[in-house]
Every structure is written in C-alpha cells, then in structure tokens.
C-alpha cells in the first residue's frame, strides 16, 4: 500500500484547493493507495474560499475532511483563523493525506506548525501554478515565485482563465511550467484542467505529462 502525503502550495487564487480536493478524490478511487484519504484545510490566510462550505459534500463522497464548520469559527477575516486541533496531528494518523495550504510564502510556512511534517518521508510539496495569474504570468515571474516559496518537490500546471479558458492557454501554461521545472530541476508532476476539456485534451499535455481532470467544487465554496 502506498501512503501518499501531498501538500498543495502556491500563489493566491492559483487553484490549490481545487487541485487538492480533486487529487484526494482521485486517491480515494485507487486501490494501491493507503486509505482512508484525509483532506486537510490548513489555510489560515484566506477565509473566503475554503473547504468549509463543501465539507459535508466531500465527506459524503467518502473523504475524511478536516476543516472548520462555519458555525465553529471565530473572527474570520479580521482576526485571522487557526487550524482545527485535529489538523496539527494529522500526519500521525494512518492513511493518506492531502494538505490544502494557504497562499504564498506565509502559507507554505504553515507546514512548520504541522507535527512531523519535516520528518515525514512521504511528504511531497507541490506548487500549483497558473499562467493566468499576473504574479506567475510569465516564465520569469513563475521562476522567481517558486524560488521564494521554500521547499517544493514538484510543479503542477493549473493554467486557466476561468470560463474563458482555452486549450491553447492550458498548453502554453504546460510549456511554461515545464521550462520552470527544468530550470529548477524539479518534476512537472501534472497538468490540471477542467473536466470539460477531457475529450479534446486527452491523457497527456503537450509536454507529455499526465492531465488530472478537475470537477469544479470551489465555485460552491465561496464564503
């Protein structure tokens, strides 16, 4: 049985949560992956788009979800927020973990609070990158951004423009992220794309990396 532990980090609104929760659902279906699959909301930075509003929906799909319920939170926005206590110790539990991390360097640093993170042999930190985000809107910007993020084990191309996404844009993102990956000697782990592109995009992106198709949950997770 493979124990998978993945942390999704990256720029604000890069698609970390969508990529993380879809990955968790994918792991749920894979028999060689150690179960249960625990999805953990570790975002203390942005109180608005979180797993909170869709927690029960995701639990209904079979995931073990550690996230606040809105009624249990205090001080959202103004006073910051903390983790549910169960989140801090999640790596001590058996099973696989997908960690949804807050944005930017500060978000990535929250791994310092996770018990056993830096000694966990299975932990893989994946940076989610969207060429449509201005702060990662070019090869140079993306390279500089990933360099300041801290430890990263792989890159995810999640280039999109919301409803205005095109296949050409996804592929341009794949090429750009692949160049950044090559420069940093990191793997381009996968491209993520909205499931509506599945028929036309196929199994692999223009760089030959696997495509993970996303069912969109996060539009329902607003506030």
């Amino acid at each position, binding site marked *: 049985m493979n124990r998978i532990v993945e942390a999704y980090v990256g720029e*604000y*609104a890069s698609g970390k949560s969508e990529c993380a929760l879809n990955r968790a659902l994918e792991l749920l279906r894979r028999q060689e992956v150690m179960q249960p699959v625990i999805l953990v909301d570790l975002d203390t930075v942005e109180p*608005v788009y979180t797993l909170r509003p869709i927690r029960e929906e995701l639990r209904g799909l079979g995931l073990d979800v550690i996230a606040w319920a809105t009624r249990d939170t205090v001080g959202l926005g103004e006073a910051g927020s903390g983790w549910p206590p169960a989140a801090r110790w999640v790596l001590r539990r058996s099973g696989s973990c997908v960690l949804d991390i807050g944005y930017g360097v500060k978000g990535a640093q929250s791994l310092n609070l996770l018990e056993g993170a830096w000694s966990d042999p299975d932990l893989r930190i994946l940076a989610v990158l969207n060429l449509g985000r201005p702060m990662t809107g070019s090869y140079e910007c993306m390279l500089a951004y990933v360099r300041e993020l801290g430890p990263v084990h792989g890159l995810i191309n999640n280039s999109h423009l919301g409803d205005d996404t095109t296949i050409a844009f996804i592929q341009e993102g794949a090429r750009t992220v692949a160049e950044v990956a090559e420069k940093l000697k990191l793997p381009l782990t996968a491209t993520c794309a909205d499931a509506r592109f599945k028929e036309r995009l196929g199994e692999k992106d223009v760089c030959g990396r696997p495509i993970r198709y996303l069912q969109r949950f996060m539009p329902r997770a607003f506030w």
Partner: protein
Amino acid sequence: MPEKPITGEKRAFMTGNEVVAWACLAAQADIMYGYPITPQNEIMHYWTRLAPKYEKKFLQTEDEISAGFTTVGGVLAGARAFTGTGGPGNVLMQEAISMAEMMRIPTVMFIQQRGGPSTATVIYSQQEVTLTTYGGNGEGYRIVYSTASHQDLFDYTIKAFNAAWKYRFPTFILGDGYQAKMRESLMLYDPEARGITMVPAEPLVGLPGTPGVDRDPAHLRNTYNTEEELLALIKGYQAEYDRIAPELAEHEAYDCADAEVIILSHGVVSRSARIAGRELREKGMKVGYFRPITLRPFPDAAIRRAVAKAKKLLVVESSEGQFLKLCQQSLCGLPLPIETLLKPGMGITSEEIVAKLSAWRWG
C-alpha cells in the same frame, strides 16, 4: 524609468482586489494610503507587492481617519493618490471625503462594501450606498461608480482617476466583498493603447510664482466665516454638479422598450438581475433590466426614459432600501408601483428574482 506594468492587452484571471491594484498601476497612480480592513485588504497587499517594481509608493497609516486625510494631502501635493476601505473604515473616512468635496480635491477611493451597521460582517453587503453617495456633512458632491464585474473594476478605475482630475470632485469605485474576493478573467490593458489619455495630476498648492501677481492664489478653504459665503459657494457647486451630471451619468439597460416590469439593481446584484431578466424573457414575460452605473450622479433622464412604458418596477438589492431611496428620488412623481426584493447583507441569486417575478400576476 521602470517598465510599464501592462503593455498592449493581456487576459488574466484575478480577484477583484487584485484588479484594483493593477488598474491603479495602469492608470498611473502614484501612491496608495491605506489601513487594513476586510474585504479590501488585497488591494493593499497587491499594491505593496507591485509598488517597488514600478517605483510607486505606499503609506500604511495608523487608522482610516489618517488614510483619508493623507490621501487628500497626497492629492494636494500633486500625486495621483488613492485609498481603499470598507464598512467602519468608510465611516471614518467621511470627514476627509467631506473636506475633499469642499476643497474640490480629486481623491479616488475604493469601497468594498461589507455588512453593517458597525463591524457587522466582514465580507459582503450593499449597505454603503447612502454612506458613499451622501455620507458627509454636505450635499454629496461626489462621483460614485458601482461596478458589477472585474472588467468593470478595471475600466472604471481608469475612468475614476480621469473623472476625479477632470471634474475635481472626490470619486469612488463602489464594489463589495464578493467582487473583492471572487475570481474571474478580464482583459488588462494599457489605457494609452486604447486611446485613453490620463488627465494629468498636478499640485494644488505650492505652485510657482507669486500669488496675486503671477497667478491666482491657491486659496483652498474648508472653513467659511459667514452663512452667506457658504450659501454662495454651495449654490455654485450645485450648479456645476448639475451641469456635469449628464456627462458623467452612466447606465446599462436591456429590453426596457416594451417591458411591463423592469428590474432595477446595481453592482454585483445586477448580474443576477440580468440573468433573471433574460430567463423570464425566454419564457415570454416582458421583463426589462436597468442598472445605474453611476449612483452619483444618478442617471435620472435615462431611468425615466427606460420606465416610460412599464407597469411595475422591482428593486433588488443587498440592503434594506438604500438603493431603493435613490430610485424613488429619481422617479418621484411617476405613478409606478415599486416592489422590492431587499436582502441586507445577503447575496441575491437570479433564481430568487425569477421566483419573485414568476409569482406575480401578469397582464
């Protein structure tokens, strides 16, 4: 010279607060003064991330009273200056905004509305309409654009700086927590590439030459000694505001010509209203849609034209009637019943509007 933040056109996927920061760069703003408050924080965050690269400035003040007045001061010194706030911060800035009205100081302010009164909720509402349009001690000589999309935020930010510096009235972009935080794509562009020239910013004080000899004195006052002086000044401001109002007023309207019912809404709620209007049209109901883009000045002539043949109006907003009052004032004297869908602090979906209108007896 720092590089241009945007050359030509580029499609991007952003949050509304980020759009504001980029639009201010595109509009050649010089400095932001600000104090943190949800839901406008990322305007500051992104401005401060971008500012060093493009040789722009930022000052975090000790509170919103100071942020309002430093914005006024920055403009007086000739900077294309702006600030952003929401909720209680908007309340605290009213004194500075009133001063800007009185002294004709072209400040630009971004209001991301949140719930009220007081601290209330931190994320969404349309309850700062009255405050932003008429909040100060005075007559509300302000220009207020109520945006509905990220493209609006970008376009009207550029327009706001130009309106402020052309007409010399404090100018506002009235957004809300949803627009601040939601993500969608938009086209970023260099205004010059689209033939938009930025009205130059210039110092209002400390001008060269001897006052009274080489130039008129820059005698900016917010204090008047007699009632008569004030009366004359305000009458003059009113006349000027009335004169420019038709140039400034903007609106969006669909299907109003033969509509029996017209939905009136503004800001992000108008997105739901527009979808609802279309759906009901497809079902054969004669529904029109009217959205004032400027809440000050209100598009009086356009709304009166739009409702000329309507039998009934529906006002939809996320407040308990602040926008309704503006509509009633504008439509005063017309024998048109106005129904409402008022949800202070709550978002409104197109389904709710469709349900409300579907339940009516038509014809």
